């Protein structure tokens, strides 16, 4: 098992709030978090894809993870709400600025496309409303073979009883189909009081029908796979890999996240 991660902390321009959010996450024992920039897909690119704000501008000092002696690691992530196939542009240059790329498909067709062809790391499952389609076996298996993870956010379930029901229903349907494999559970909230600790999430995921070990993977190992997958996506299938020389890389936001010896493992 690897470090605990929460790969969905929505971006807020409010620096103070972001700071408390990071502090809470560190206090709860998350070693890595990803700040999520949400982008609603539109055709013809009317709206610009936001550029990630450099971390140094957001927080002055990264909080220390509880029970550890090192600071929390913060990544950038882009989530695109896709309601039409044209919303996702393959290999767009804007995506390169982000560490992790996620999509949230709204129709069955797009879900299928996202699982089978989209070059992404995470597919978000809608939890705030009734799923407009059923999960089919083929795309789910396709996603598993390509190493794409499904993401479930639990914060909506804390907020409201109806949403809790949708969260449970949709996740139960998903877990039924892919047997608890490649699912990650993340928060998806910008309120510190809606964050929960990794062991709480492990227990919560058992409600979705996952076993205890699978549930724990959902906050640790599977997240690590996401990061490695993101790495290979950015580095031509992980065959070619460049490392910045130490003298020009900044310790905070420069170096990539995966292991250095990635070159040999393709």
């Amino acid at each position, binding site marked *: 098992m690897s470090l605990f991660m929460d790969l969905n902390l929505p971006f807020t321009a409010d620096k103070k709030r972001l700071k408390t959010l990071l502090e809470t996450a560190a206090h709860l024992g998350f070693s890595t978090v990803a700040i999520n920039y949400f982008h609603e897909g539109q055709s013809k690119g009317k709206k610009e894809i936001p550029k990630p704000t450099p971390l140094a501008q957001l927080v002055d000092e990264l909080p220390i993870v509880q029970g550890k002696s090192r600071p929390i690691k913060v990544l950038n992530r882009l989530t695109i709400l896709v309601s039409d196939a044209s919303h996702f542009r393959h290999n767009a240059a804007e995506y390169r600025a982000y560490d992790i790329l996620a999509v949230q498909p709204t129709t069955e067709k797009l879900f299928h496309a996202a699982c089978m062809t989209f070059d992404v790391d995470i597919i978000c499952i809608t939890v705030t409303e009734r799923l407009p389609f059923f999960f089919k076996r083929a795309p789910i298996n396709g996603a598993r073979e390509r190493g794409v993870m499904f993401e479930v956010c639990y914060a909506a379930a804390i907020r409201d009883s109806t949403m809790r029901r949708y969260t449970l229903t949709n996740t139960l349907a998903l877990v039924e189909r892919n047997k608890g494999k490649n699912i990650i559970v993340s928060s998806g909230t910008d309120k510190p009081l809606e964050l929960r600790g990794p062991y709480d999430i492990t227990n919560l995921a058992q*409600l979705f029908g996952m076993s205890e070990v699978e549930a724990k993977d959902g906050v640790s190992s599977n997240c690590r796979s996401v990061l490695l997958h993101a790495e290979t996506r950015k580095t031509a299938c992980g065959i070619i890999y460049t490392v910045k020389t130490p003298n020009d890389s900044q310790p905070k936001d420069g170096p990539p996240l995966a292991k250095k010896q990635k070159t040999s493992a393709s």
Partner: protein
Amino acid sequence: MVRVKSRYLLCEIHVSDPSKLLLLEDRAITAAVKDAVTSAHGDYGAAQCSIGFSVKYVNAHTGILFLRCPKSSYRLIWSALPFITSVERKGRRISCFLSCLHVGGTIRTCQKFLIRYNTQQLHRMLPKCKTQEEKDQVRRAILSSSTYMLKGKEHKEERD
């Protein structure tokens, strides 16, 4: 492919006022069952029974229901059935209660059970019949159901 395993609950609905029996329909019963599950088992129960739960068949004449539940949660739904006290239809409240007669893995086993059950009921009705005509009717009905059982033919609906 793995078959999705379900359980079928064969239930009888008892209505205090028999004339209202005809008002029953599947959507009203679905809502009543879902409400009962929600109040007895909360959001978790509601979520469990929103996947793969459906009312397969309602016979408004005899008050027979087939409920289809996923195998994993049939006990949860079953346990909530006794808490149903009324069914609401078009703003009218029909007070009733459900009793579960049989739990089967397929509709077919439930149907077989239902025929046997109805035959039994007819046998019990026979001594109570007052006129000869009624008796003949009941006898014919028993005969037809028994021959059905013997032939094992498919047929669409049960009538007694």
